[in-house]
């Protein structure tokens, strides 16, 4: 009858396949552990008592970040936030992801936390989810049935739920090729440095030579169960030069899709009020930082 401390076992496999097998054989209460930043805190608080811990630390494949020949970037699930924040492979619009990574928690925690662990936990106010949706990332998942890839949008189901099936783990995040003219921006509002977002906005944009938006993706964090992408707003901005009127109109479309709650970080009402303002600022910053380059 007695407790976690006597009944959890610990495994440290060397391959993804081994890890998946170890998770599968231990059933529902087995947990993969990557950086530990979230899971160990939950175990310390006696909120989670896994029957088995499968450490992903010794799996080389997961620790790599590679620039692939097609221009996509594959970020292994065990890449630490600090690595991703300083990742030289992330350029142009991909910087929405490095920007998010650089704003997670604080330096020592960024040393520990991993991208795979963070998105698997899928905190509604976490920084990666909106940035990955804005970046049009795909999530690579390994499970008993082998590997599969799904768009980030379909991965985050809301309120801590993800598309991961029992026994599955995230193995990588794949960012699609981006053009050099594209830009990415992650704008976060939080109470105190390093806190989870009260609200956050992630955008990636590409422009043509005359500064007209040719493609745009936008996602909001902290204002619902998961990242909220608003395609209508994206469409409304494509073809514009991000003039203030267009941004204000698009922001209204965004607000209509938000589903915030009152929590200790802020009220739902405030989030609805502040998101359009954050959006305006994000776009304004993008336009301003772009103009001198033209």
């Amino acid at each position, binding site marked *: 009858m007695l407790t*976690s*401390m*006597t*009944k*959890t*076992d*610990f495994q*440290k496999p060397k391959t993804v396949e081994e890890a998946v097998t170890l998770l599968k054989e231990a059933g529902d209460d087995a947990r993969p*552990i990557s*950086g*530990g*930043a979230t899971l*160990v*805190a939950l*175990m*310390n*608080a006696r909120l989670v*008592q*896994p029957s*088995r*811990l499968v*450490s992903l*630390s010794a799996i080389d494949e997961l620790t790599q970040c590679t620039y692939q020949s097609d221009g996509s970037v594959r970020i292994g699930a065990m890449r630490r936030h600090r690595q991703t924040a300083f990742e030289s492979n992330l350029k142009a619009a991909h910087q929405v992801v490095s920007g998010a990574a650089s704003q997670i*928690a*604080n*330096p*020592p*925690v960024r*040393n*520990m936390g991993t991208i795979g662990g963070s998105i698997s936990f899928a905190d509604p106010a976490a920084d990666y989810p909106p940035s990955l949706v804005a970046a049009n990332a795909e999530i690579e998942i390994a499970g008993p049935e082998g590997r599969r890839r799904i768009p980030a949008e379909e991965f985050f189901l809301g309120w801590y739920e993800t598309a991961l099936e029992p026994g599955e783990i995230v193995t990588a995040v794949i960012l699609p090729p981006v053009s050099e003219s594209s830009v990415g921006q992650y704008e976060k509002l939080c109470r105190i*440095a*390093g806190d989870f977002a009260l609200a956050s906005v992630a955008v990636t944009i590409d422009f043509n030579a005359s500064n007209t938006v040719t493609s745009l993706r936008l996602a909001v964090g902290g204002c619902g169960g998961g990242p909220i992408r608003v395609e209508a707003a994206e469409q409304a901005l494509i073809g514009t030069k991000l003039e203030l009127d267009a941004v204000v109109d698009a922001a209204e479309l965004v607000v209509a899709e938000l589903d915030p709650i009152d929590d200790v970080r802020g009220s739902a009402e405030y989030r609805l009020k502040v998101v359009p303002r954050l959006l305006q600022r994000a776009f304004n910053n993008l336009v301003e930082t772009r103009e001198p380059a033209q």
Partner: protein
Amino acid sequence: MSQPVTLTVNGKTSDVSCGATTTLLTVLRDTLALTGSKRGCNQGVCGACTVLVDGAPMRSCLTLAANIEGQNITTIEGLPEGGDLKPIQQAIIDSDAVQCGFCTSGMILTAHEFLQRNSNPSIDEIRTALSGNICRCSGYRKIVDAVALAASRGGA
């Protein structure tokens, strides 16, 4: 179930018996009697338990002992070399950057690692580096000054 774990702490290797969910902080404090690492929140936020794992600052309260076998752990007790204080320790003394002292071990280890990477930091870089270590007494000013002082003396 307990399992034996071999840990290398401050250059000394020990076999400790601990559970799969036992944190490094618990092993350091309860098994190895290295109580310089403090438990302030057990959640990774306050930073009082910060130690170096293979030279990088980590929260010992969020690190499972079983998961860091074979890695080199440095705690505040192991920081002085040959009994001499590290420059950051001396700078903390010289800047009067200690009040209650509960955050000090974690603060020193975080700053020490930072100074190894950045020998000539700006005040803002220091503020960023220390932003994961909470001090409730000092208002941080003297701690930031201490890190700048250590840097100006050319050492971590």
